[in-house]
């Protein structure tokens, strides 16, 4: 069953402050089923892994560095990062790409998450900060649980 705009907690978190600019067209485009939402956490794990790898090895501005990345949106975003573009410019480009994107539902949501991850990588944010931005896309309950779990792991 599709999740109606504002009927689910994950939307609350997703639209923290931006929710007040909420628009029905965007709501319809981003709506997806709970089952589809289950695929988001593994995707976020992948994005964190990419960020971790780039953090260790640096971004090599070679033509084929991201050739193995199958996710076209992420690949293009990382290519732009490798050119040394500032976060502000990247945000402008990525938001336009999302605006004109023909995808809907979970595929579109994944693009949104990928775009946030690209910006996070470009701005050199650490893993915690990145997760704070990405996890709310999974829903506030999942995000809070994941963050609390991480916090207790760190405390241990």
């Amino acid at each position, binding site marked *: 069953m599709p999740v109606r*705009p*504002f009927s689910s907690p994950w*939307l*609350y*978190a*997703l*639209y*923290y*402050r*931006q*929710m*007040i*600019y*909420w*628009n*029905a*067209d965007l*709501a*319809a*485009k981003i709506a997806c089923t709970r089952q589809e939402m289950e695929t988001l956490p593994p995707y976020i794990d992948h994005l964190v892994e990419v960020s971790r790898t780039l*953090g260790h090895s*640096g*971004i090599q*501005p070679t*033509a084929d560095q991201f050739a193995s990345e199958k996710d*076209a*949106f992420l*690949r*293009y975003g990382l*290519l*732009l*990062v*490798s*050119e*040394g*573009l*500032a*976060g*502000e*410019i990247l*945000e*402008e*480009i*990525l*938001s*336009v*790409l*999302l*605006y*004109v*994107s*023909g995808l809907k539902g979970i595929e579109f949501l994944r693009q*949104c998450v990928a*775009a*946030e991850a690209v*910006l996070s990588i*470009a*701005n*050199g944010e650490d893993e915690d900060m990145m997760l704070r931005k990405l996890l709310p896309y999974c829903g*506030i309950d999942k995000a809070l649980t994941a963050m609390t779990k991480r916090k207790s792991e760190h405390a241990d």
Partner: protein
Amino acid sequence: MLIERLAQMYVHWGNAGQTGEPGRRKKDQSVLAVHQFLEVIENTAEDRKALFTQSQQSRRKATKLAYLLLASETEPAAIHDAFRRSGLLSGGQRSNKPEALLWLAGTEAIARGIHPYIVFLIMSSYFGLETAESEFRWLQERTKASSTKLEEYIVPGDLTDTIEEALKEPERLQRTIRVAGMPLSASAFAGCSLYYIEKILALVGPVGALILTEMMVSARKRLVSDEISTAQQAFLDLFTQEETEPEMAEEETGAGEQALPNLPDPELIQTTTNIVMDAEAKILKATLSAMSDSEIASLLRCLEAIAHERLLNLISPGRQKRVLMVIQKTENVTSGQMLRDAQLFAQKLLATYAPKNLKPGVTLSIPEKLRGLISYLLGRE
């Protein structure tokens, strides 16, 4: 934030998909027009007469307007108005809207002094991911034909002395370039020796390298040695900050949590109180009914007494007792937890404001003052 920007685009321009995908031929023509724009800007940016001529020769209304506005050196803020007044962005011209937005974005970016290559990347993103990536590859190829060359020119300064050390941490240097932005980075690198410039340029892709090179050439023409030294100092400050900031943030957070675990944040309390006092009673009541007793108890901790009264008046006497019992049982909370509680309430309040069935193009009808307060509260970290 990215998603906020996207939401604003939807609010301002509506759904891009409503206008229909342009046909292949039309898309190719539009891409060619953007190629031509890049060419013209590179060759005639300072030549107003040539830009006027281009405007006259252009067949498309949006392209014509773009060249005309640049030829008349229109302020970036006025460019938006000009496009709006032209009717290109209005309902009657909806079939041309993405193209009009593309030219508006390109013209504004050039007027803001953004490098033409970056403007090209912004403009080509309006064609969608596939075309944007192929145009990016085209641009990478195009950089190979560039003849821009730098000559040896060294300005003694902080960066000149430390660049060799900095290059030992390429990832950090790459990050500093992105954080500083290309104009500042190029001004700083303009005083470095060619040997080191080559190493720096190898840290970014061919498009970024050419942009930096052209900006360095420009900086050497515009800036005196002292200004380049100042840019070097500013860049180096950022580079140093990149190393110390995370550690400092960690230390500050740690110290703050330990020393001031329960200190309420007066600003948070003031903002949350104002939200409660300004929200319509009907909406507030509906919001409270969607909250648990413990959530209401948590919210009460973030409010001044005057707001307690309003809030408690909106729930039944039985529930009032239950909430007060929860408060008595609850231990003190940290300021971070209080912020999260207040934000959760703000999110639920927003959800109540949203009608059950939003129609396309409709935005939430929240009073302006309340909108500002909620936005501020939700934006806090």
